[in-house]
């Protein structure tokens, strides 16, 4: 039985190595559809949040606790990481594996920076204001929405680390290029969701 997979490892990569194979195309479309589902997932959580954001049951309200400084910093970190992942994909299409890894690593570090900010923020709410996901319906909805997004960031970083470790010594080929590409798409999605969270939860919450 022919077990020759050399077609996956050409000497020179095509212009779009991520979509050169059927598997690559499938992964690309599959991830897009997955993100469609994720959009509805977050839309549901946004709906719940908007319905419950004034149900503080005597507990702290959004205007009391939110501080925009830290959140703004977090937003900048995450948006920059989106940009760096674009650089990474640019280098992938040029077949420059080392630069791609470099930019992906920077993306990951920025993501970790964002997470540190979020953990600090949550801890701050709980210790300073006694505001947790059990305090009120508002608390539940806030931590569910923002925490769910945070969970996505955590998952993304784990995914990225696995990808980088796994392919550290392999270089770029038609088998793993789609994997890097799908990660980058997912990462953009997380950023877009955060922009909505920043607007709907923090800005609108602070303004009242």
């Amino acid at each position, binding site marked *: *039985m*022919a*077990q*020759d*997979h050399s077609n*996956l490892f050409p000497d020179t990569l095509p212009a779009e190595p991520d979509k050169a194979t*059927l598997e690559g*195309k*499938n992964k690309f*479309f*599959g991830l897009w*559809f*997955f993100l*469609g*589902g*994720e959009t*509805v*997932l977050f*839309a*549901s*959580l946004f*709906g*719940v949040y908007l*319905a*419950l954001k004034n*149900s*503080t*049951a005597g507990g702290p309200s959004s205007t009391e606790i939110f501080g925009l400084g830290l959140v703004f910093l977090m937003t900048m970190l995450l948006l920059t990481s989106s940009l760096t992942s674009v650089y990474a994909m640019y280098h992938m299409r040029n077949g420059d594996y080392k630069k791609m890894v470099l930019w992906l690593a920077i993306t990951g570090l920025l993501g970790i920076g964002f997470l540190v900010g979020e953990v600090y923020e949550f801890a701050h709410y709980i210790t300073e204001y006694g505001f947790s*996901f*059990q*305090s*009120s*319906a*508002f*608390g*539940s*909805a806030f931590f*569910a929405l923002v925490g769910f997004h945070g969970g996505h960031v955590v998952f993304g970083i784990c995914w990225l680390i*696995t*990808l980088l470790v*796994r392919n550290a010594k392999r270089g770029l080929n038609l*088998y793993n290029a789609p994997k890097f590409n799908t990660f980058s798409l997912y990462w953009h999605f997380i950023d877009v969701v955060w922009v909505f969270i920043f607007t709907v939860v923090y800005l609108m919450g602070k303004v009242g």
Partner: protein
Amino acid sequence: MSSIAATNKRGFGAFLWDYLTTVDHKKIAHLYLAGGGFFFLLGGLEALIIRIQLIRPENDFITAGFYNEMITMHGTTMIFLAGMPILVGLMNAAMPLQIGARDVAFPFLNALSFWLFFFGGLLLNVSFLTGGAPDSGWTSYASLAMASEGHGVDYYIAGLQIAGAGTLMGGINFIATIVTMRAPGMTYMRMPLFSWATFITSVLILFAFPPLTINLFLLMFDRMFDTAFFNVALGGNTIIYQHLFWIFGHPEVYILILPLFGVFSEVFSTFSRKRLFGYTAMVFATMLIAFLGFMVWAHHMFTVGLGPVANSIFAVGTMAIAVPTGIKIFNWLLTMWGGQVTINSAMLWALGFIPTFTIGGMTGVMLGSSVADYQYHDTYFVVAHFHYVIVGGTIFGIFAALHYWWPKMFGRVLNEALGKWTFWLFFIGFHLTFFIQHFLGLMGMPRRYWVFLNDQGLEAGNLISTIGAFFMTAGTIFFLVNVIVSARGEQAAADPWDARTLEWTISSPPPYYNFEQLPLVRGLDPLWIEKTEGDGTMPPGEPLDDVHMPNGSIIPFLMSVGFFISGFGFIYQTDSSIWYLALYGGLAFSISCMIVRSLKDDYGYYIPKEELEKALKGEAK
């Protein structure tokens, strides 16, 4: 590889291992049909118990608590564990063949979808053995589900969450398959209606399941971690649950019916020897129904007190769905008009569907009239209505599809005589059971009633209804007998129905790689075109070459076992923290499976050209 070994005689162990590790869409279809079929029998048994309890007034055949478990599990099982999986099974069996593909886009994910469904369903049903199944109705409305004691509702949450994840993956898989893997010449507007329905249904799954996922999460957090989403004292709101549930729940109805609209289109067209009447209109009607399906969820909530504006909008939207559905009914009738209509078992189910589903559609429009619904809502009228659409549409359609594709899936033709017995018993039993329930509802019998009281004029109707249920049971038994008898029956030809679409161009059952060469499609109903204008065989759409195939894997099975175990952890961690061991242990196991999967490169394998050439020559003989 393993699939080649499968064609040889081997022991049960090898057979089992083959199915545990398979990523072949045709075998996964078998698994779905077996799993869904098992749960269908279970759900049917539960239905029978319900009907026996209601055979006479103030009966005490089962206790009130157990009755509520029965109605909950009957609904949940039939929708999530029987209806949808059997449909996904049919899609797996037929869709890749119909569009001329060798497999689905993500064969590994396909296997994972099945095992997640299976273990989710198993988890849900384990609750019977561990002190009580869920008892808050298949809707599991927040206020009652919050108050429900024991772990029943926790099982509901965990089981559906796991099974739902599988379904969602399946949806994505089918969409990607149809987008990227259609055979040369198979444009969108040449796809058979069943493949179209699969496509549109998958989109519905993709957008409808996430709200359910979120809803179950919220309920889980409230029940297990004391959050306040539905706790009114802390500002929570239980109406949110109802909205999210029906934003999922109404499209779910269309998920259950649209694939069968596809099946009926195939069956009517094949057995009338005519092309589908108004193909384009049918495609767009299906899309319109799917789209409107997302716009009408609150007609399940007319009595919640949403106010006249919301009620009016949703009432009008609901009635509007009658228009595209009507288009479909008339197109089917006109497909038969002027054709040569052969009536066999598959066709009988399709013909039985027309009056039955029309009645279900009628009552649907009647229910859409919000003020009339103040009377219908949550009574046996509604029970009758949704059984007319779900049994009259989905179950009739499943039976039609099984009789139609059985030869393709299993290489045997089902027995005609037994098939007709199945149909008549089930059809008569169905109308006997459910027609009278329209009137029971209006006569003042709400649904989910453990007993109805003496002397309230409800005795005769309930008795007739229970008798009908026994007829349906008999029909189902005839079908099982048919399956067993036919296993030794007539070997199926490649094209036993003189049909029109690509799946009938290859042997029954098809080889594991489906097509030696992908066919070139020259129009709608490609096989019919070749029969009438060509030599009856498909021209090749690609040169003969090595065929790339995916490797089998046990990982989907193992991963699902991990989630199954962590499901128990979630359910019982409120009792004792030792269960965190199961929760995290199971999750860790599943995640390690995932890591193994991504660390180990899997390039698949190739079937050499020579082997395919040999197979082609064999067919030519």
